[in-house]
């Protein structure tokens, strides 16, 4: 299999310089998403990366890829296990740590959100997120989208975890549903126009679930990534991880990427070489090359989060970790 950084059998470059689609027109509601047309621009005339250029941005980080190194895995593991202290979790009832639970545990009162998807009140942005997630999965898996709203609802119908959301969407008043369909179509169009074809030899995997047991099974790190690309297990890092977001940039998104990198690094001989967030609303791509520093920072944050969970910090304060609340960060620098 060709490595991700050298294979040239990818969608051709050049699709990123196509004129913008006019905005502000009537909301499209039906029909398949056209392919091969112009690429919509982002705000203020900025042209998002598309196709080959987008793929290159993901593949070529400008840094050497980490080598597989059992010593690194041991160091990371110890850096967490030695510092989390006595735990409320036990091997029989492990403390399950997710990106969401970490963010909540480390958030101040002002920025703490409800625990988990199931407890978040349904809203149009939440519905857009769920629909765009399944449409992205469809695009990666079969390479095309039909009518975005129909396809998205179709996919939600076979996911019983989304039954309540589906019911909520189906009960929306006409105007809201039309607005939802319009936004979903807009983002789906952007996806189809910009997202690159992935070489099947890279084994693109959607909704890949990752688990790591720590401290003798007392703590479990759990993550599910929107997209993992690259065959794992070689002696050099070869996996890239992409998280898809339908909303705006938030500081915790970058921290989520670090958590994904950490979990992958702990479960495999080699860490991922890159973690990235792709914003379907704007076409922005935030890329984080993975190195020891990023992994160490993610491990420290995980320790802080686990300690905060142990103290029940979810009920107040920022877990005693100054600056740990992602929502309080005034500005987080991003690569572009």
């Amino acid at each position, binding site marked *: 299999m060709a490595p991700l950084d050298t294979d040239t059998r990818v969608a051709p470059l050049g699709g990123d310089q196509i004129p913008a689609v006019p905005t502000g027109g009537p909301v499209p509601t039906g029909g398949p998403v056209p392919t091969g047309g112009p690429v919509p621009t982002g705000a203020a005339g900025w042209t998002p990366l598309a196709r080959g250029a987008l793929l290159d941005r993901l593949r070529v980080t400008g840094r050497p890829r980490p080598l597989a190194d059992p010593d690194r895995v041991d160091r990371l593991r110890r850096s967490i296990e030695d510092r989390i202290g006595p735990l409320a979790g036990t091997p029989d009832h492990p403390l399950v740590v997710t990106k969401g639970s970490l963010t909540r545990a480390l958030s101040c009162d002002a920025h703490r959100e409800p625990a988990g998807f199931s407890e978040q009140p349904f809203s149009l942005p939440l519905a857009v997120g769920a629909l765009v997630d399944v449409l992205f999965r469809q695009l990666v*898996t*079969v390479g095309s989208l039909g009518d975005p709203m129909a396809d998205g*609802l179709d996919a939600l119908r076979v996911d019983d975890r989304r039954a309540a959301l589906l019911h909520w969407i189906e009960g929306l008043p006409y105007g809201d549903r039309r607005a939802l369909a319009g936004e979903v179509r807009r983002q789906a169009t952007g996806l189809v126009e910009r997202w690159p074809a992935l070489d099947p030899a890279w084994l693109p995997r959607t909704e890949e679930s990752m688990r790591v047991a720590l401290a003798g099974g007392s703590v479990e790190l759990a993550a599910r990534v929107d997209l993992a690309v690259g065959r794992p297990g070689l002696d050099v890092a070869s996996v890239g991880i992409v998280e898809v977001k339908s909303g705006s940039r938030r500081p915790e998104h970058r921290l989520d990427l670090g958590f994904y990198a950490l979990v992958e690094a702990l*479960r495999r001989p080699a860490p991922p070489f890159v973690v990235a967030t792709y914003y379907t609303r704007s076409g922005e791509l935030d890329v984080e090359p993975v190195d020891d520093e990023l992994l160490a920072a993610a491990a420290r944050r995980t320790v802080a989060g686990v300690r905060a969970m142990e103290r029940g910090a979810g009920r107040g304060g920022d877990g005693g970790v100054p600056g740990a609340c992602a929502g309080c960060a005034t500005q987080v620098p991003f690569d572009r």
Partner: protein
Amino acid sequence: MSPDEIMAALVRNGCAPTRGTRITDALLAPPTGSASEAARDAVRGRLLATVPRLVERLPVGSQVTIGLPQLRRLARGEGVPTVPEEPFTWKPAFVRRSLGLATVEACLDHQHRWGPTRAVGPVADRAVAEWQRTGWQTYHWEPWFAGLGPGARSAVLAEAGTWAAALWTALDWRRFPVPPRLGGPDDQWVCAAPRTVRLRGRCELRAALVGEPTGLHAPPVIGTALVSVASGVPDHREGEAELAFLALVAALRSPSRPVPDRVVGLWLQSDRFRVVEITDELLDEAASRVVAAIEAVVAAGEVTPAG
């Protein structure tokens, strides 16, 4: 040097084997000692003598089914429900394994050169076409899948393709001297009685273990290994006996075939594996787990009703 130290040294020298190679070598290594025919006869006799008595107080005609999921729940100190809690309806997770295995098999047969994530769609389409042509449902999900819209179909394909890709990369398929058998019917052994007890062993892969080649002859097959794919992380409460259950059922089902020599548990989400060599003692211990599970089921009164 420990295996990890050797691995670390290999990595530093830039010649580390893939993790798939490590797992595959562990899977295909020559057996270190097998369970005897006498042990197989003994556990069969023990189960035939014990099980009917255990289920005596259940309604006549009722059924108890014990599989690895039940034993795992028991090991975790949870109940062992054998009756589905809600009516069965197809969903992507239920198609994942069978379609994923068919996809890996198609890739091994060189029907698809690009690997499982690309192959999964054509494999599903072929299954549906075959059902439409013959009326035979190889996987049972064909009619359901055929009736789905594009979005739902892609969700099914994504689920199975991702699972298949994880299995595809977990093993080094080039190292199998004899093509492994993927999926297939579950091993089953029924302790026939007025109340039926059915042991069901489901494994994802059966591999032949071969010895040294002699002369111009192909290496002889000297044993069998089973692979069981699980989700999550290995549970510390689960011992070797749970995995050995799969060898037990295979041994009971086919008395004329050798007892499987090895069972490998593969946890794809956490990238962990566990190798269990099947011995006389372990076979007996697996039988004990079965007895305990049946007792738990009977105590809970959770059985498939008569009729």
